[in-house]
């Protein structure tokens, strides 16, 4: 009673009649309805006489008050009567309530240290704070710069933690189920039928067996359950199970579920990369031995070929007619057409000689000029040995006139394996694959000079090439490709091929990409800006690659191999340096026959059409057109 003087809180209303006037039910038997909708009956009231008698009998009867709402008689307690009395007297119902407490003057001018000022509110209360805005600007800058991080929520501490903290990957460890036990059958019964019981001989036989072969359980009969002994292998089996769990591998290997198709690089469709050579329509027949080398002239009207039968032939590309034949008597190693259109000269390496042949395909004026050039040349070499380079040329190479073919003959001291022209058609390099410093020579046609290259060669040179636009020279040894700057006379780069033996190299017409074919059938594409390691290695041929070639204008390159095939690839080099070259295999060109284990010996692109020439050991040259 003490805590509250609110009478409503004390007793919950028993009645569920609701707050309705009682006159509504004055003449009714009930006073309302309960929660279930049933009538609540009025209690039979004592009549006045009874109540009077009761009050006479019971001195305490005055305490009883009729509660009309709840329809019941409430007996007042002593405290309640006391409270009533106090209320009647006009006092506060609770005696502990002090109506006149000592007033404490909290807000007086005399006592307060900081009295309430009477001054009007200053303006700054209404104006946004300058310093706060400065602070905000600083914070905003900090957030923008990333110095202040707003997104970082405070790390939620795990409310529960692992008591045994060491078992960190406990959640990852999955449940290892025990092996499923075999359900017991009839023979495992304590009292199996007789047919399950082994005979004494059988038991003896079992004992003779190895433990592994012995049946795990031998049925026995017991007359009652009481006589069944304890399971003798209980300890053993639980030990084994523990051992299993202990020795069971702790890490779980997740099987990678990847569609193998998705691992393939997304390559454009071959249809979009047309044109490229696909079908052989023309054959150039006439050689009697394997065609070792072919070369096209700069216009694409003629193609020259050299063969082991000792002849060099010039063919008309469009009709397949052999236009001219030179009999050189010895197996031809390499033919190379001068890239300059005004100088229809063919360089042919035969044994230790290099012939510069006049093809006679230019107009009269050009032919005369070439004749002059090839003629004057020999005199110069003989008559002017004064210059220092000329002395070198006298010792290593002898320039002489060959009147049989109207040609210049450069006699080397070793067998020349290849001849490569510089793009301007004046210089050409010859290669003798012997491990000496004079293995690679550079000749100048117009002056009749020969020079050694001023670089130390590491290993046997295999192939050489001039850069298509700059004065850069590529020398490939069996393992590496070295790139030299001819003007500055120094090594620029070394490309590590990682193949067994390089057989040929080709330079992209842009000059920044090199392909290298190897004798183990691998084709390496180097992006020289990227790295000295191959950008891509294409392991396509089962046999030696004999030659690789780039197309001059189309994004094509090809490789020919001793497996009688030539592969054509799309090799797009983008001018955007960020984009890597795109390499797509396009076509396998077949058709050559294998002779003595050799297949296609050379391949060259037509200089202007997307066509590929292949020279085979079957002494046929084929033209594949788009």
């Amino acid at each position, binding site marked *: 009673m003490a805590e509250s003087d609110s009478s409503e809180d004390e007793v919950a209303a028993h009645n569920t009649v609701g707050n309705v006037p009682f006159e509504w039910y004055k003449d009714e038997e009930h006073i309302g309805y309960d929660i279930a909708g049933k009538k609540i009956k009025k209690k039979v009231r004592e009549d006045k006489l009874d109540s009077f008698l009761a009050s006479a009998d019971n001195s305490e009867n005055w305490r009883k008050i009729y509660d009309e709402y709840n329809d019941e008689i409430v007996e007042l307690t002593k405290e309640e009567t006391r409270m009533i009395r106090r209320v009647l007297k006009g006092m506060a119902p609770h005696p502990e309530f002090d109506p006149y407490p000592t007033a404490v003057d909290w807000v007086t001018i005399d006592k307060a240290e900081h009295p309430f000022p009477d001054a009007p509110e200053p303006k700054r209360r209404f104006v946004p704070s300058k310093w706060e805005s400065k602070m905000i600007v600083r914070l905003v800058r900090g957030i923008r710069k990333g110095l202040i991080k707003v997104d970082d929520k405070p790390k939620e501490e795990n409310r529960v933690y692992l008591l045994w903290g060491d078992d960190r990957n406990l959640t990852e460890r999955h449940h290892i189920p025990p092996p499923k036990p075999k359900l017991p059958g009839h023979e495992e019964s304590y009292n199996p039928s007789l047919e399950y019981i082994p005979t004494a001989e059988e038991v003896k036989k079992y004992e003779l067996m190895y433990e592994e072969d012995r049946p795990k359980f031998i049925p026995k009969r017991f007359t009652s359950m009481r006589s069944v002994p304890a399971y003798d292998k209980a300890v053993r089996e639980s030990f084994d199970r523990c051992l299993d769990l202990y020795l069971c591998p702790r890490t779980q290997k997740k099987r990678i579920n990847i569609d193998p198709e998705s691992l393939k690089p997304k390559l454009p469709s071959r249809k979009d990369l047309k044109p490229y050579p696909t*079908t052989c329509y023309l054959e150039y027949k006439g050689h009697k031995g394997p065609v070792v080398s072919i070369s096209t002239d700069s216009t694409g009207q003629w193609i020259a070929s050299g063969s082991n039968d000792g002849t060099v032939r010039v063919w008309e590309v*469009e009709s397949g007619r052999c236009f001219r034949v030179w009999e050189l008597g010895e197996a031809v190693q390499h033919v190379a057409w001068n890239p300059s259109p005004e100088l229809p000269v063919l360089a042919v390496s035969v044994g230790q000689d290099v012939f510069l042949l006049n093809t006679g395909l230019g*107009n009269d004026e050009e032919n005369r000029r070439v004749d002059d050039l090839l003629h004057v040349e020999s005199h110069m070499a003989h008559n002017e040995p004064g210059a220092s380079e000329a002395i070198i040329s006298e010792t290593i190479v002898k320039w002489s006139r060959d009147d049989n073919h109207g040609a210049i003959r450069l006699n080397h001291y070793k067998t020349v394996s290849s001849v490569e022209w510089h793009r301007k058609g004046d210089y050409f390099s010859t290669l003798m694959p012997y491990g000496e410093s004079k293995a690679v020579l550079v000749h100048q046609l117009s002056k009749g000079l020969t020079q050694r290259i001023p670089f130390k060669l590491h290993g046997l040179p295999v192939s050489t090439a001039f850069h298509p636009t700059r004065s850069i020279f590529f020398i490939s040894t069996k393992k590496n490709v070295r790139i030299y700057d001819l003007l500055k006379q120094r090594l620029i780069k070394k490309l590590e091929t990682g193949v067994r033996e390089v057989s040929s190299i080709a330079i992209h017409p842009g000059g920044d990409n090199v392909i290298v074919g190897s004798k183990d059938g691998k084709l390496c594409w180097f992006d020289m800006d990227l790295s000295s390691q191959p950008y891509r290695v294409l392991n396509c041929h089962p046999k030696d690659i004999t030659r690789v070639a780039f197309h001059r204008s189309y994004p094509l390159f090809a490789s020919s191999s001793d497996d009688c095939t030539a592969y054509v690839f799309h090799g797009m080099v983008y001018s955007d340096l960020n984009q890597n070259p795109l390499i797509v295999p396009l076509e396998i060109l077949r058709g050559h026959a294998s002779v003595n284990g050799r297949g296609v010996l050379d391949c060259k692109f037509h200089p202007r059409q997307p066509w590929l020439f292949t020279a085979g050991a079957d002494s046929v040259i084929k033209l594949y057109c788009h």
Partner: protein
Amino acid sequence: MDIDGDAEEASRRIRVRFVTKLKPPYKAPPTSIAIPTNLTRFGLSALVNNLLKAGNADWKIEAFDFLIDGELVRMSLEEFLLAKGISAEKILEIEYIKAVAPRKKEDPSLHDDWVSAVDGSNPRFILTGCYDGFGRIWKTAGVCTHLLEGHTGAITSVCILDPLGSDGRRVVATASKDMTLRLFEVNIEEFQGQLKKIQSFQTLRGHNASVQCIAAEPSGAKICSGSWDCRINVWQANDSDSGGDFMSVKKRKVDIEDEEPKSEGEPISTLVGHTQCVSSVVWPEHETLYSASWDHSIRRWDVETGKDSMNMYCGKVINCLDVGGESSSLIAAGGSDPILRIWDPRKPGTLAPTFQFSSHTSWISGCKWHDNSWYHLVSASYDGKVMLWDLRTAWPLAVIDSHEDKVLCADWWKSNCVISGGADSKLCISSEISVM
């Protein structure tokens, strides 16, 4: 009755009427008859022959070809009707024409080397160019009347100027790999049974590389030539009578062997635009000439202004070109693939060929429209075959298989012969082809 019913089941019948534009001895009665639908071209031909024989006792059997709705029948009637969606309910009109196929092969005319060019535009003789550098004039198969001397390189192309002129004296032009063109004057009538050697009366110099093709203006006043130096030169074709024309700039020193002084000509204009070898030129009208090149384009040039009025890119190297067909405006070209393509340049907005014929198996080296027919053309290919084509069917009308090596050139002669030269050094003539 039963048997008849079975036959009816086996082959359904269709009512047809045979019509033709041929002259009376070939006219069949215009009544409609019911024929089985499983008949092929051969069956139809036999049927028409029977009909004709019924009207004419001494009828000789003739092969016919059949057109339904302007298309040649190349399968059984039933399949054809199904494929074309033609109703079999109505009376079907079948037009028949004489089958276009060579009925006779003349003996090959042997050359000393590959026959690279042939021109049959004059019905009285055939002009051939050969890799040995000589041009030859053949009166008929195997009868060579004139030998045109002078070139130092292989002849690549020949043409007859103003071929249908009335007199017997004709001017012919040859182009060669020695970078020159030569003009010869030939008198056809003067043949006395032995070979006559003729020197050229004019040499045209001006190309920097092999001349690949040559064509004459219809009137014969000018010729044009395409070359490996990417240019087309237009020349004045001097008549030998007006030898002192202003175009013959300098006269060479008269050689002792030469009967008449040789004059040299220079190009009156050069059409520049192609970026690779010009492989073929044709000059069908006075002011326009067409050229095809290895740079994959076909161009139409306005000779007067020297500008190209049309540039058609077709994706392949083109070796041969001809303009003809319907109102002489269809372009036929073949090149570095086995497909003979025909464009209609009047069709706007598309570069797709209107017809493609792909029965060859190698490069097409020559193609030529028939002079009078809108539909017929001949093509030569490196696969050694010459094929006759009709625009109304996708199959070749005839395959002439007389060459043993690459066929390098082909042309029509006398409107009913096909002449072709090849790498087997033969000039083959297939005659009695009844076009129209």
